[in-house]
C-alpha cells in the first residue's frame, strides 16, 4: 500500500502567542482514534496538488463543467433594517439576494463548493468562522473544523475520546438523546449534581477525588457540558463557576466538551449602542456575551461545539468545532473516514452570508442581536403569564432563564396530599419519595388537557457510582418548557398548565 505523508496540517486559528507544541494529546484518544489511518487517496491528492502543471488522472472527480447547477440564490432578510428579525417576521422588511455561482465571481465558487474536499471543510468558511471565534472568544491557539451540526460533532467526539468501559462526566439532567448515543459505544455516564445555577463544581471535584480506579475503572477524562441554556434546566454557568470547573479539569486532566448551540441567544445583555456605532455589532456583542470555556483554554483541553441550528435553522446541518490542532486533525481523519466534509450549498451559503456581498460578520451579529431581542420578548411574555397563571398558586416555580429556549419549571410536590417523602427504596440507593409516579400522573393529566411539556425524567442520568447520596428520581419534579412558539401558544399553554396544576393538587 502506497502511503505518502501528508504535507500540510490543518489551518490554525490566529496564534496569540501560546505554544502548544510539546503537549501530548494522544493519551486522551480512544484506541480506535489512535489506530485510524489517514485516507491514502487524499494523501496522494495533496502531494499531486503541490506541483503546478501536474495532470491528475488519479481521481474520479466529476469535472465542474458537468455539475448541473450554475447558480444558487438565497433570498434573505436585509440586514439594513433597524430590527431585522421583526421586519422579517412581519413581512415589512426589505430582502437581499445573495448568490453563489459556478462560472462567475462570488465569495465561494460553486466549482469549489461542489467538489470533493477535505474533512475539515473549505478553507474560506473555516477562516470566516475562525475570525468570528477570534472576535468573540480570542481562543489561545485553536483550529476550526466544520461539522454537520452539534449532534454530529458531539458523537464524533465520543468516538474520538471514548473506549468501551470509559466513564464520562455530565450534568445529571442533560440532553439524553446525545448521552444515549454514547452508550452503545460502551461509554458510561457519571452524573454531576446541579442547582439553580447549573453544574455544581464542588460535586465535580467530589466525584473525581473519591474515584476509586480499582472498583470503578479508569477515572473519567471527559466532561460533557452545555454551559448556556443548559438542556434541560435552562441555566447558564456564571464566569466564576466556569473558572472553577476549568481549574478542576486542569487538575484532573479532563477534556471539556463545550456543547454551546444556544450561546448566541442571550438575554438582558445591555449591549452598548455607542459601541455598536463605533466598533460594530461583533465587538459590542463580544463585550457582553458569556466567557466561554474556549476563551480560557490555555491547556488546549476544550473542544467547543458551535452550531447554526438555533441561529439560522436546524436544517442547515452545519456547525464548527474549535479545538487544539492535534484533536482537529484526528477529528478530520474520522470525518474523512465517515460522513465526509459538509455539503457545498451550506458552505457556499455561509461564505456568501459572511462575505462582503452578504451580511458580513457584523451583519450576522446584528441578526443575532435582533434574534436575541425576539426570544427575550417571548421569554418575558412566558414569565409574565407564568407569574399570573401559575406561580400564584405556589404549586410551581421557575427561575428566569438568561439564555436559550428553556424554562425549568419546578413542581412543588410537597404540597400534594399524596406526596410521600419516606418511602423505603425498592433497591439500595433507590428513590425514597414517590416523585416519579406523581410526575408521571401529572404529565398524563397535562396531555389530556391538551398540553405537552417534557418531564425531567426524560433527561435524568442515574448515578451508578453509588456515591451520590440520593437517587435522581427524587429530584425529577420538573418540566422543561420552551417559549419558542407563538404568543398564542405561550398564553394558552400556560393557562392550561395553571388550570391542570390546580386540578392535580386540589
Amino acid at each position: 500500500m502506497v502511503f505518502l505523508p501528508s504535507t500540510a496540517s490543518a489551518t490554525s486559528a490566529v496564534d496569540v502567542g501560546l505554544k502548544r507544541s510539546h503537549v501530548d494529546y494522544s493519551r486522551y484518544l480512544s484506541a480506535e482514534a489512535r489506530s485510524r489511518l489517514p485516507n491514502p487517496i487524499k494523501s496522494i491528492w495533496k502531494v499531486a496538488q503541490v506541483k503546478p502543471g501536474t495532470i491528475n488522472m488519479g481521481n474520479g472527480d466529476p469535472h465542474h463543467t458537468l455539475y448541473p447547477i450554475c447558480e444558487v440564490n438565497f433570498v434573505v432578510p436585509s440586514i439594513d433594517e433597524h430590527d431585522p428579525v421583526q421586519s422579517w417576521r412581519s413581512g415589512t422588511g426589505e430582502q437581499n439576494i445573495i448568490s453563489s455561482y459556478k462560472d462567475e465571481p462570488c465569495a465561494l465558487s460553486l466549482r469549489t463548493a461542489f467538489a470533493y474536499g477535505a474533512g475539515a471543510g473549505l478553507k474560506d468558511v473555516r477562516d470566516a468562522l475562525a475570525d468570528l471565534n477570534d472576535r468573540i472568544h480570542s481562543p489561545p491557539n485553536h483550529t476550526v473544523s466544520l461539522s454537520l451540526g452539534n449532534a454530529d460533532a458531539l458523537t464524533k467526539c465520543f468516538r474520538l475520546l471514548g473506549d468501551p468501559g470509559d466513564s464520562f462526566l455530565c450534568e445529571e439532567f442533560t440532553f439524553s438523546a446525545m448521552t444515549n448515543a454514547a452508550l452503545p459505544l460502551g461509554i458510561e455516564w457519571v452524573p454531576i449534581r446541579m442547582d439553580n445555577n447549573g453544574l455544581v463544581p464542588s460535586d465535580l471535584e467530589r466525584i473525581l477525588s473519591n474515584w476509586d480506579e480499582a472498583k470503578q475503572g479508569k477515572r473519567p477524562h471527559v466532561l460533557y457540558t452545555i454551559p448556556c441554556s443548559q438542556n434541560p434546566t435552562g441555566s447558564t454557568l456564571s464566569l466564576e463557576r466556569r473558572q472553577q470547573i476549568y481549574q478542576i479539569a486542569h487538575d484532573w486532566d479532563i477534556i471539556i466538551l463545550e456543547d454551546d448551540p444556544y450561546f448566541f441567544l442571550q438575554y438582558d445583555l445591555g449591549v452598548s449602542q455607542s459601541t455598536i456605532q463605533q466598533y460594530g455589532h461583533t465587538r459590542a456583542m463580544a463585550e457582553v456575551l458569556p466567557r466561554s470555556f474556549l476563551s480560557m483554554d490555555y491547556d488546549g483541553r476544550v473542544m467547543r461545539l458551535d452550531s447554526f441550528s438555533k441561529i439560522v435553522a436546524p436544517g442547515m446541518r452545519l456547525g464548527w468545532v474549535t479545538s487544539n490542532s492535534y484533536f482537529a486533525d484526528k477529528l478530520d481523519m474520522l470525518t474523512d473516514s465517515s460522513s465526509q466534509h459538509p455539503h457545498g450549498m451550506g458552505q457556499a451559503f455561509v461564505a456568501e452570508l459572511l462575505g462582503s456581498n452578504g451580511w458580513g460578520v457584523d451583519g450576522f451579529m446584528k441578526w443575532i442581536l435582533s434574534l436575541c431581542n425576539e426570544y427575550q420578548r417571548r421569554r418575558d411574555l412566558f414569565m409574565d403569564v407564568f407569574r399570573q397563571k401559575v406561580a400564584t398558586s405556589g404549586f410551581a416555580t421557575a427561575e428566569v432563564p438568561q439564555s436559550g429556549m428553556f424554562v425549568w419549571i419546578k413542581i412543588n410536590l410537597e404540597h400534594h396530599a399524596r406526596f410521600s417523602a419516606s418511602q423505603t427504596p425498592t433497591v439500595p440507593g433507590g428513590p425514597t419519595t414517590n416523585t416519579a409516579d406523581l410526575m408521571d400522573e401529572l404529565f398524563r393529566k397535562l396531555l389530556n388537557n391538551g398540553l405537552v411539556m417534557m418531564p425531567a425524567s426524560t433527561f435524568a442520568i442515574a448515578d451508578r457510582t453509588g456515591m451520590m447520596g440520593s437517587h435522581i428520581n427524587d429530584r425529577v419534579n420538573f418540566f422543561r418548557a420552551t417559549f419558542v412558539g407563538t404568543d398564542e401558544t405561550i398564553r394558552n399553554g400556560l393557562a392550561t398548565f395553571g388550570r391542570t396544576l390546580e386540578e392535580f393538587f386540589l
Partner: protein
Amino acid sequence: MEEQRIDDNVTSNNGVIDLSHHLSDEARNRLANPLKDIMRVISECPVTDLITMANGDPHHSLYPFQQIMYGLPSVQDPSDPVTSWNNSGRTQMIHSYRDQECALPIRNAFQYSRAAGLVQCKDAITDFTNLIFAPPNHHVMLTFGNSDGLTKVFRLFGQKGDHFLTDEFSFPGMTNCPLAYGVKWVGVKMDSGGIIPEELEKVLIRWDEAKLGRRPRLLYTVPVGQNPTGSTLSVDRRKKIYAIAQTWDLIIAEDDPYYFLRYDVPQTNCASADPDEFIKNFTSTLIPTFLSMDVDGRVIRLDTFSKVLAPGMRLGWITSNKLFHLKLGEYTDSSTQPPHAFGQMFVTEMLSEHGWKIEGFCRWLRSLRLEYQNRLDLLLDVFQREVEPTGYASVKRPEAGMFVWIEVFFEKHPRFVHERCSGGSPVVARTNTECLLKELFERLMNTQGVVFLPASTFAIPENALWVESDGHVPLSDRTRFLRAAFAGTEDMIEKGMIRLGKGLREFFQE
C-alpha cells in the same frame, strides 16, 4: 417532530428472513430515541389540538430564507442536455419557497427531522427507486452520500475481530475505515469481469473459524464500474453471488455510485416524446441490480448523487429491508442526523413537476453517460496511439464507470526479478512487481507530471490462512496496474496518455 413511520401496507417480514443476528453489538445496544416513549404516549393522546411547549425548535418564521433559486440545465433538448449545457448554457430556474406552493417548502425543509429524512424528499427518491430498481420489499433512507452511508453500514454489522469480504482491489477510502475498530478485510480474487463467484465460495468453504474467528458475513462490492478495476459484474455472476450469499448467509453491501455511467448500450430512443416510454427504454439499458433480486432482504444498496450531480451535493440514499432501515435510522438519529435542507429541497424540486421530473433526470443521466463515453473513447484512442505501441502496457475497455485499469508488463523491465522458489508462504511476493510499480508511479508523477494511482493503493492484504496454498499467485505479484480516471477535460486526457507513453518508454529503457 415527525416520528419515523413505515408504510402501513408493508407487512412485517413478507418473505424477508430474520437477519438480526448480523447486527454488531453496538447496533444491538443502540437505544431508540429516548423521547420515543414520550412521543408514543403523545401520539396516542386523543386530544386533537395539542399545544406543544416541548421542543427547542426555532420557529420557521425565524428562518432567514424566503426563497432559494437554483439554476439548472434545461432538459428541453431531449437528445443531449449535457452538451447543450456546456455550449449554450440554457438555464432553467427551480425554486424552493417559504410562502408559496412547491414540492418541499422551506418552512418544512429547515426543521429538525428524524431517521430517514424529510418525507417529501424520501418519497420523491422512493418513487425514483421503485421505478428504476423495482426493489421487492425495501425502504429508502437518505444519507450524506455513499461514504456516509457505507461507513454507517460497516458500523451496523462489524465489530472487533470480524472479517468483511470485498474485491481484492478495492477502494481504501472506504476499506480503511473499519480497520480502526478491528474489522479486517478478505480480498476475493477478481478477473476482468469482477469478483469470481467460485473464488468467493472457496474462501467461505475454506474458512477456519478456530484460527480466524467468525466466518465473514458481509460482502462489500462496487458492481458497476468497480473502483479501481473498472469491471462490471455480469447478470450471471450476480445471480451466482446472490446464491452464495444465501447459502452462506452474507449481507451484500451494493455500493453503486457509477451505476448510470454504463457504456456501449443500445441508444435509448430519445425522440420518444412520451415520458413513460423514454423511462422504460432508459431502464432497459440498465443492468439488474443485486437489490432487484433481493428476495431475502440481505442486500443493502447505496446510491449517491455525487457522480451524477456533484460530489459536494453530499446526498445519497440507502435501500434496505425494514429491520436494517430502522437500525440505520436509529444510528442516524444518534449521530449525523438526516441530511441538510438544501440538498433535500434541491433534489425534491428537481424530481418534481416544477423541475426535471424523473424523466428529465433520466435524460440528464443518459446524456452524462454519453459524455463520459466520449471521454473514454478519446482516452482509448490516444492510448492506442501513444501507449500501446510501446508494448509495455495494455488496457481493456471498461463497461462502465470512470476508470481504466492499465496493465503494465513489468516482466519486460531490465530489473524485473522473479524468484523461483517453492514452498514458503503463498502470499509472500515472488517478484519485485510492486516495487517497480511504485517506482513507475513516482517517476510518472515527478518526471512526467502525470498522476495515476498504482494498484498497490487498492490491494487488500492477503493472509496465508485464507488463500489456497496450491498454485496461488500472490496478490503482490499481480499488482501490476495503474488506475486512470477519464473524468477530466479532453485536453487533460490527451496530455495524460502522451505523458504515460513517454514515461513508460523512459522507465523500461533506462
